[in-house]
């Protein structure tokens, strides 16, 4: 039942223009407080999953991507809409996503094997790999590494407010009793993702409405034959990218799109409504959405902002994802995997016969949707601790997030580090505590040293790439200046 509700809520929030899976999951995170642990985890996972398909609807019909990973779908999806084949585009997205999801869930089963290996991790190893995950945040910083790192540092700091885990003394509480338990990070995540997005949309230009007819959603056998190869290739690409923490979501869908264009016998059709241009990226997206769970379930390390939000849901329920989850709470781990398998079927049913119902949401004036969402957000924040303090934190976070986003500071790194920060501090201080403050002890584990080595590689790669890009730009500018003066 909770899987059905989750998929439905995810579809509704995903259809909201500009709302991606992270914002949708963050918006509905307060459910984690009121539902039993298994139900809340299952529902939130299905909300995430459902919102991905909801985002496909806006990508195809309005050419408005919910997030970066939907951009590739917009290219041929919207072209199909302009040719009166919106229904077919949505249908192949649904079928491709279903097949990709079913295959990817089998891969998810192997997360138990990885967990079994990681069960022997010490605090040093946890610190090393958490630091690696933090470094991979560099992949979420976008064009400006400085602004991305500022966002990451702010997120880390938020996790430090409250009582110190070892001495019990207050830190950064400013004398407020409400801050002794720490800042309500759910309200913060709702604020920086959901509320800031809504404020930007309310202030910006009007989002397009959709009033057309999507046409038939029936696929011919030929459509399926044309797309099955794209679906299988996209599944493989998306699954692989989802295993890599910090890999930009857009990378897998664009990689799938590029591969399809290269292997196609009619590459000139791409960009003009090629069905493979929708099937490949959508399958990659869905497979990535499932394989994203593997680092979280097996190692306890979120690989994206949305996984960080789901990690928060685990934490709220007193659960710790990672190697011990399969041992201590097998019903949660396997229940989640089973629910994702079930969600594939649910979404196929919701997406195909009921697609017109979801599309009708787009006909509702967006300001009404935003009004409902703002009201719901305030209730959701109130539910966290039954006081207006969390609602106040929600709005402060929303205003800060809105302001920072206006100046190009991405919020995805902050969402990841808000959740990773306390884990990182705990493992760091424990590792030092048991070794009487000797920093050299941080290098005494071979697995941790491997993680540190990978950190150096990641940072060096990013810096070299930035320097090369800057040099290229400098050369271009000087050649433009020379040709201009001639």
């Amino acid at each position, binding site marked *: 039942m909770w899987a059905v509700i989750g998929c439905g809520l995810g579809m509704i929030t995903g259809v909201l223009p500009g709302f991606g899976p992270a914002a949708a999951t963050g918006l509905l995170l307060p459910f984690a407080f009121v539902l039993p642990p298994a139900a809340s985890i299952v529902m939130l996972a299905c909300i995430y999953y459902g919102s991905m398909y909801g985002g496909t609807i806006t990508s195809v019909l309005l050419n408005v991507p919910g997030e*970066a990973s939907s951009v590739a779908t917009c*290219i041929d999806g919207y072209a199909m809409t302009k040719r009166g084949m919106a229904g077919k585009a949505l249908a192949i997205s649904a079928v491709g996503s279903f097949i990709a999801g079913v295959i990817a869930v089998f891969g998810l089963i192997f997360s138990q094997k990885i967990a079994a290996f990681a069960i022997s991790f010490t605090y040093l190893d946890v610190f090393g790999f958490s630091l690696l995950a933090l470094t991979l945040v560099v992949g979420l910083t976008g064009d400006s590494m400085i602004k991305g790192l500022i966002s990451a540092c702010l997120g880390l700091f938020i996790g430090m407010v409250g009582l110190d885990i070892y001495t019990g003394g207050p830190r950064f509480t400013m004398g407020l009793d409400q801050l002794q338990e720490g800042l309500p990070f759910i309200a913060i995540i709702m604020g920086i993702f959901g509320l800031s997005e809504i404020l930007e949309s309310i202030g910006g230009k009007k989002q397009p409405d959709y009033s057309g007819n999507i046409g038939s959603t029936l696929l011919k056998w030929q459509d399926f034959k044309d797309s099955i190869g794209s679906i299988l290739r996209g599944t493989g690409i998306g699954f692989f990218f989802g295993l890599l923490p910090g890999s930009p979501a857009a990378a897998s869908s664009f990689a799938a799109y590029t591969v399809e264009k290269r292997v196609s016998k009619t590459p000139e059709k791409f960009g003009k409504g090629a069905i493979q241009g929708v099937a490949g990226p959508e399958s990659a997206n869905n497979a990535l959405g499932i394989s994203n769970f593997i680092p979280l379930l097996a190692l306890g390390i979120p690989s994206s902002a949305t996984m960080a939000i789901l990690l928060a849901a685990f934490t709220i329920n007193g659960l710790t994802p990672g190697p011990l989850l399969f041992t201590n709470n097998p019903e949660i781990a396997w229940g989640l995997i089973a629910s994702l398998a079930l969600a594939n079927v649910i979404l196929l049913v919701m997406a195909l016969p009921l697609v017109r119902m979801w599309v009708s949401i787009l006909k509702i004036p967006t300001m009404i949707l935003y009004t409902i969402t703002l009201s*719901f957000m305030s*209730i959701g924040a109130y539910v966290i601790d039954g006081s207006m303090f969390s*609602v106040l934190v929600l709005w402060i976070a929303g205003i800060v997030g809105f302001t920072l986003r206006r100046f190009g500071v991405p919020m995805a790194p902050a969402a990841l580090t808000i959740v990773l920060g306390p884990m990182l501090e705990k493992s760091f201080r424990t590792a030092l505590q048991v070794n009487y*403050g000797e920093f050299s002890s941080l290098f005494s584990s071979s697995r941790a040293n491997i993680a540190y080595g990978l950190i150096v590689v990641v940072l060096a790669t990013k810096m070299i790439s930035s320097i090369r890009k800057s040099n290229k730009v400098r050369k271009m500018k000087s050649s433009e200046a020379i040709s201009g003066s001639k």
Partner: protein
Amino acid sequence: MQTTNDAPSKFLNGNRITAFVLLLVSGNLLNFSLRYGLFLEDGAPGPGLFPALITGPLVGLCIAWLIIGDRGVPKLENESNEIDDLTAEIEAKLDEIQEIDSDGKKRIGWVFFWTIIMFATFERLGSIISLSIYATGLLFSISNIKSWKAIPSTLLMILLVTFGAIKIGVTLPDPFNLFRIFGGQ
């Protein structure tokens, strides 16, 4: 190939002001971190060590942002290519910092105004009355919706949310016992 600088110049001062404010805040936080103590008497890490390791670099990053201002990494435009043009056009929708005109600022202003009203009334008047005022006020002020549509829409929304909240066991403020109408306590 051509290069473009993607940041509009009107954000230049805004970037530096924001960077300066963040610098002041992070400097203050670094000061607190050092006061908490980096190490305990037995050499174990103190409560201020980890915050100092975060706020220290944050100060440096804010200084860097203050210096750089709005200068981002200029984007390279590839040779004209239909797919790349389409991609750039769509990606721009994600990356674009939307212009907020005077009407947009008014709408945001109204959102803040009604939110303050909600803060003042949520626990005093109860969630149903407070949200009714909030939602109706927003609908009138930020959308062009007509009253004969706005009010029933609002009430329907409030009823659904309240009913749903009661069903899943959420406790919302209700000083006038309006929830008993929906079968709540």
